[in-house]
């Protein structure tokens, strides 16, 4: 059956007017075979393997863009957690691995590579500890390497010693990259219940259950959902809103499926998953906050925001699940504060506080993302913010993440502009009260009752 004009024009409008794109094609590369007792040799293998498998990634993405007319914004690589690869070397300084990853990313022409990662939700191996200690120098010295650390899972509880160590790493990274507004912290994220096929930077890495290589796709599309809701108008019921979002998410995800299959075929690897997250950018109209406001809250952060976000996330997942058999990653709605113009405006007018953001993270797909805090925030307070977010993930059996940026020399309400995709942040006020005793106690918060499912 041929296509109708309406179908054709709807698709063309998505690409031309509604900033629809494929946000990322991320090639996962397993590096476990790069382990070596000699640190230099191991880093050498890491470089060689990333370049070996990733060499065609950009060309393939470009060819798909040309053939299908679908813009593919980012091409990225995710690797096995480096702490696992580095363990055999016994080295305490793992920055050479970050350098090797950075050089490999430069060689294959990509802007970010994820996988400077450790899983420490229950305890530290020597290599895990070495990796956490190496994070600040690695983030400061390299441009493209992103780091993520798993601090909690529903099955294991929260490793509060790791939370404390990670908080110190965040502060040290901010200090070392102070001249760039703590840019290093934008490449550093911690997780509760991390997913092993996340294509989105900064948390991208591939888990140990994956094969040699895998191609994952992250779609975008807040602009498309926003336009669909705009056309729906304010008179329709919330059921109609959910239905509209679901239908739109279906169409967006189908594009992800097409690009994922094609990219995997052209790269000679397998297609892993489509992550159907709505990922905003600072571009006008490409905003999750705008969608929440179209659903019916006056400003993002006003009462009703969490409910609207819950509806949005769920409808996106339902549409996505119908469109692809392989929905994975984080899949939902991202709320990276500095990267979403609507969120920036909401913070600027005093509607969106850190507390409300935390409430929103209980129903969104990730967590406190790209949230700026004052540069002089103590490690204890940062630990507290992270622990709260980890607890939300742990108890609700969902992925939550924290990407905090303590902006040096800036206090609450002040603005910092990183430019590009990272956008502009208004420094949030974490309040004047601390949690020093909780922080000093250390140890582990045991796994919740929800984990006993066998």
């Amino acid at each position, binding site marked *: 059956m041929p296509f109708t004009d309406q179908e054709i024009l709807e698709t063309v409008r998505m690409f031309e007017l509604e900033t629809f794109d494929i946000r990322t094609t991320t090639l996962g590369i397993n590096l476990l075979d790069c382990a070596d007792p000699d640190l230099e040799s191991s880093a050498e293998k890491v470089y*060689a393997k990333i370049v070996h*498998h990733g060499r065609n990634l950009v060309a393939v993405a470009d060819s798909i863009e040309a*053939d*299908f007319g679908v813009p593919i914004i980012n091409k990225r690589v995710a690797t096995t957690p480096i702490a696992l690869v580095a363990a055999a070397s016994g080295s305490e300084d793992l920055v050479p691995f970050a350098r090797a990853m950075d050089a490999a990313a430069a060689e294959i022409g990509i802007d970010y590579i994820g996988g400077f990662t450790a899983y420490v939700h229950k305890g530290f191996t020597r290599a895990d500890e070495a990796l956490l200690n190496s994070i600040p120098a690695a983030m400061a010295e390299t441009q493209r390497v992103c780091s993520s650390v798993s601090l909690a899972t529903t099955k294991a509880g929260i490793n509060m010693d790791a939370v404390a160590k990670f908080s110190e790493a965040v502060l040290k990274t901010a200090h070392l990259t102070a001249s760039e507004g703590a840019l290093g912290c934008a490449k550093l994220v911690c997780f509760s219940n991390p997913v092993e096929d996340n294509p989105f930077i900064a948390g991208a890495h591939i888990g140990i259950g994956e094969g*040699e290589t895998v191609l994952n796709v992250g779609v975008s599309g807040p602009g498309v959902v926003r336009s669909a809701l705009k056309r729906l108008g304010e008179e329709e019921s919330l059921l109609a809103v959910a239905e509209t979002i679901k239908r739109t998410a279906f*169409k967006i995800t189908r594009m992800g*499926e*097409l690009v994922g299959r094609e990219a995997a075929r052209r790269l000679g690897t397998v297609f892993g998953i489509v992550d159907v997250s709505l990922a905003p950018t600072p571009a006008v109209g490409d905003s999750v906050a705008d969608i929440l406001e179209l659903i019916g809250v006056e400003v993002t952060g006003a009462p009703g925001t969490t409910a609207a976000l819950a509806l949005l996330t769920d409808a996106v997942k339902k549409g996505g699940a119908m469109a692809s058999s392989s929905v994975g990653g984080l899949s939902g709605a991202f709320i990276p504060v500095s990267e979403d113009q609507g969120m920036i405006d909401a913070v600027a007018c005093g509607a969106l506080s850190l507390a409300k953001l935390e409430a929103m993270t209980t129903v969104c797909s990730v967590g406190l993302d790209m949230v700026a805090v004052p540069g002089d925030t103590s490690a204890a307070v940062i630990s507290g913010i992270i622990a709260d977010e980890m607890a939300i993930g742990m108890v609700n059996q969902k992925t939550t993440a924290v990407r905090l940026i303590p902006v040096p020399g800036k206090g609450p309400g002040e603005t910092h502009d990183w430019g590009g995709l990272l956008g502009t942040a208004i420094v949030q006020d974490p309040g004047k009260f601390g949690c020093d005793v909780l922080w000093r106690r250390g140890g582990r918060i045991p796994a919740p009752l929800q984990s006993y499912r066998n």
Partner: protein
Amino acid sequence: MTKRFLTADDVKRLGGSEIQVESGTIVTPQAAEVAAAAGIRLIGASGPYVPPIPDRGPDAARAQDVLPEPISTDGIGLVVTVVGRNRAGVLAEVTSALAQAECDVRDISQRTVGAHFHMVLTCAVGPGREFSSIKDALQCLGGEGDYVVRVMHEKVFRFMHRV
């Protein structure tokens, strides 16, 4: 099992005048450099070493799997949309470019709104024709203040609008 990598360290340790590299082994750039500096030749299965083709290891066959696709749309290869200022000869320009590219127009619709028009053509592509060259040829037409041509692969529409 094949050795996965040949590192600079391996080259120094092995020495000699040549090193036999198994097929499937990746020689790191540093190893190649050390070997070149020391005059050591790296030999593959047949002649000088050539880097292996990236594969997926034991489950490489899975990369060949073809998943079911939405039902075919009768040989349509591409969808052309044209939007711009109306004038005589627009349709002729677009269709003659399509004819030159051996594209068979299967469906066409055009509307004018005031001084402007929009046009949608669905076409079948001749056998052996490359999509990208047709696209380039068509998108050269028109221009600023005149009209804009957009060419998209029919798969985009098939995936989005058919189950």
